[in-house]
């Protein structure tokens, strides 16, 4: 959707009179949504997971929610080098990846922080993973078995603090 800051185009809902309070409210809400959408597009997210279908699913969900995906990695080592190269705002790391898992990659990325936030995306939530992610200092954790809306809400909260 194109966003024009001078005159946001807002389609009035059927039955709303032009200039009515309801239309102004709708217009304001849509304006705020558009502003959030535009802000979201300015954030760059890197996805790291060894499963192509999961990467596809994440990419599709993130793009659908208005975020920008700047790259993909298939293991922890590639994630580290792409974080250095692309300097994304957020990296989503799967825990179980070949070569180097997500926790190892997170430790490495956060050793020399460059502003990239780290979200661990795990198959199972266990006390051990919670403790380890806390010790490493990752910014957030999401479980693959939870609905995608939970992951998206976590990202919203992490990058623009709307939740």
């Amino acid at each position, binding site marked *: 959707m194109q966003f024009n800051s001078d005159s946001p185009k807002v389609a009035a809902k059927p039955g709303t009179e032009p200039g009515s309070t309801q239309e102004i409210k709708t217009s304001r809400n849509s304006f705020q949504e558009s502003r959030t959408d535009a802000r979201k597009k300015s954030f760059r997210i890197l996805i790291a997971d060894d499963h192509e279908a999961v990467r596809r699913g994440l990419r599709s969900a993130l793009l659908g929610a208005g975020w920008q995906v700047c790259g993909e990695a298939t293991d922890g080592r590639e994630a580290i080098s792409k974080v250095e190269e692309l300097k994304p705002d957020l990296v989503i790391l799967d825990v179980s990846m070949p070569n180097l898992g997500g926790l190892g990659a997170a430790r490495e990325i956060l050793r020399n922080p460059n502003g990239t936030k780290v979200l661990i995306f795990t198959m199972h939530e266990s006390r051990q993973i919670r403790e380890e992610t806390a010790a490493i200092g990752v910014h957030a954790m999401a479980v693959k*078995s939870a609905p995608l809306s939970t992951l998206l809400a976590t990202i919203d909260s992490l990058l623009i603090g709307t939740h």
Partner: protein
Amino acid sequence: MAEASVSALQILVADDHDVMRRGLRSVLEAQPGWAVCAEAHTGTEAVEMAQKLQPNVAILDISMPEMNGLDAAKQIQQASSKTEILVLSMHYSDQLIRDVVDAGVRGYIVKSDSDRDLVIAVRALASHKPFFTPHATELMLNTVRDPRSASAEGGSSMRERLTPREREIVQLIAQGRNSKEVAGFLGISVKTAETHRGNIMRKLQVHTVSELVRYALRNKLIEA
């Protein structure tokens, strides 16, 4: 542009993870003429949807709550004879390949296989041809060459002795449900659930729930 057509390939996708279903849908629907007609979160839901929609292909994750992909595959074959089944698992395993083949399933890939393999597999199955990746085929051939490996873990022979209902109950117990919850879930009496539980323990020669969980893990009824 692909024309919307009633003869489009109808695909059912069953996986308990939102992200995986979304990824599969995105790969499949990028193919002209292919449509994901439904998504299921559990094996039970997959069976119900397959019965209702009679899809050309059903893609079933092996580890799903309520009913695993293999048991769902068997029921779908009964409920919708035109549906070809593609089983998806997290990792390759000798045991699983044997179980897949024994269940009459003609397609099997793992989640780390590429999108290309997924598309080739669905295309083959849609033409009623089997599809196994070279790695899966190699494991199958090894099993044929060395039949001793088939019973090396003992899991297969024990598992054959369990009825589908008993396997369903093993899965529910391994997921932490007690007899009352199992009974409620399956719509049977608590007494019947306990009788099943007793029979399962006797058949598998296990005495504790943790031994039962290990059995379920070894046989991929639940994920570690």
